[in-house]
């Protein structure tokens, strides 16, 4: 394992499987009455969030606390950042406080990479701009593995706003490492130019791909990043790329539906599809804590890597 977790591409197949296997063992901790392990006692984890996030921050906080680490939450609103402090100065402040790990969410792609050069502790990328969100990919892979077993040769379809999605990029990289076959489905305007270099297939026709998918992952239409006309209307997007009941019926009987949340019900996913027993959306939240515990344990649990 590397010292930092910045990109899903940093993980070898062995690393990824080690994280997933560790998460598998840690899942039992969430089910017992004392949901705490003493492993990271005396270690400090800083949650450095420059962008709004509820579930990811809470998930990292719960994960660190279940491992007995001290957690310091730092959000850009109402902090020295709103007074104009630079990322580097913020990093040096955290360094002086003795942070063993910094979990960073930032609007700029590449911010965690810069941060890693400035702090001595481990840096965990919790989402940087439209670049990557590796722990989301890990928790998605973990959720798939729990439902389907090994991911080797599985057909995974990721649908929606790939252009703005750090979740999609991290998932494609990680799932390819784990031996799955990934197909991206999106309107051409919502695919990045470089998609041809990604280890996956691309399709514009959801109905053709659905019947041979083991997993269908719907991405959120990120209205806050929609500053140009990427598609004619929400209604048209929903009709061509939304997962409604009819499309759901075309999927194989044991295929599962995923969504990283938060969902736009009725837009990219119909409410009764999201609530069906074959949807893992609620499980994904619980699995997020478990997977992040595994990441924090593997980065911080042993001797400090230099």
């Amino acid at each position, binding site marked *: *394992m590397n010292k930092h977790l910045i990109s899903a591409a940093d993980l070898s197949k062995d690393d990824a499987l080690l994280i997933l296997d560790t998460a598998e063992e*840690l899942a039992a901790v969430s089910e017992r009455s*004392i949901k705490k392990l*003493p492993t990271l006692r005396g270690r400090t984890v800083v949650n450095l969030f420059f962008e709004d996030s509820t579930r990811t921050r809470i998930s990292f906080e719960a994960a660190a606390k279940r491992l007995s680490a001290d957690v310091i939450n730092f959000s850009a609103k109402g902090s020295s950042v709103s007074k104009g402090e630079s990322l580097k100065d913020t990093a040096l402040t955290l360094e002086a406080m003795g942070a063993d790990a910094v979990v960073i969410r930032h609007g700029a792609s590449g911010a965690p990479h810069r941060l890693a050069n400035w702090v001595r502790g481990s840096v965990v990328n919790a989402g940087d701009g439209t670049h990557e969100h590796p722990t989301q990919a890990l928790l998605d892979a973990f959720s798939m593995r729990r439902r389907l077993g090994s991911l080797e040769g599985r057909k995974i379809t990721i649908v929606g706003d790939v252009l703005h999605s750090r979740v999609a990029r991290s998932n494609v990289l990680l799932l390819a490492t784990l031996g799955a076959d990934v197909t991206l489905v999106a309107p051409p305007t919502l695919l990045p130019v470089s998609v041809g270099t990604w280890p996956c297939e691309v399709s514009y026709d959801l109905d053709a791909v659905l019947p041979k998918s083991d997993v269908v992952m719907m991405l959120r239409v990120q209205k806050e990043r929609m500053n140009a006309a990427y598609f004619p209307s929400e209604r048209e997007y929903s009709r061509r790329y939304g997962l409604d009941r009819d499309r759901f019926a075309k999927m194989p009987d044991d295929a599962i539906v995923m969504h990283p949340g938060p969902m736009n019900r009725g837009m990219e996913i119909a409410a009764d599809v999201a609530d069906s027993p074959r949807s893992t959306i609620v499980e994904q939240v619980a699995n997020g804590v478990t997977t992040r515990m595994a990441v924090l*344990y593997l980065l911080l649990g042993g001797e400090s*890597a230099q």
Partner: protein
Amino acid sequence: MSESRAVLEGPDIHRALTRIAHEILERTKGADGVVLLGIPTRGVTLARRLGERIEQFEGVKIPVGSIDITMYRDDLRLKPARPLGHTELPPDGVDGRTVVLVDDVLYSGRTVRAALDALNDLGRPTAVQLATLVDRGHRELPIRADYVGKNLPTAKSEKVKVFLDEIDGRDAVELIK
């Protein structure tokens, strides 16, 4: 050059486990309310074997599980993060039971200390006992075993390695100088 010498062979291990199984039955008055918890990896195999023997002798099936102690170790920071073992409690848990921890080698006692901490987070047993195939001495904590397969005087520089058929394809205990 390291040389290894077998101190217990297959039949010796067999006899030691048979005796421990009888001792557990005797001490716990028929193994009523007993749960065997093995410490991975080889402790789990030994716990299973003990469970089978007790069932054979008394016709009672006693719950067997495993308890991983990695997250409770006191030397985690001396090595890179280790992969975790498997913890599996019997369906009825350990509350109100007599737990017999099973390990292959008892040495510093630190593993058992960690197991007691782990057990504390999993429930509240009535009593906790310890069974070990080999006690090689050199305790660093006030811990002793209730059931011992063989007391083996060793030097600190020596290593004791246990081989079990289910994992290693043969039964033996070797002393490596």
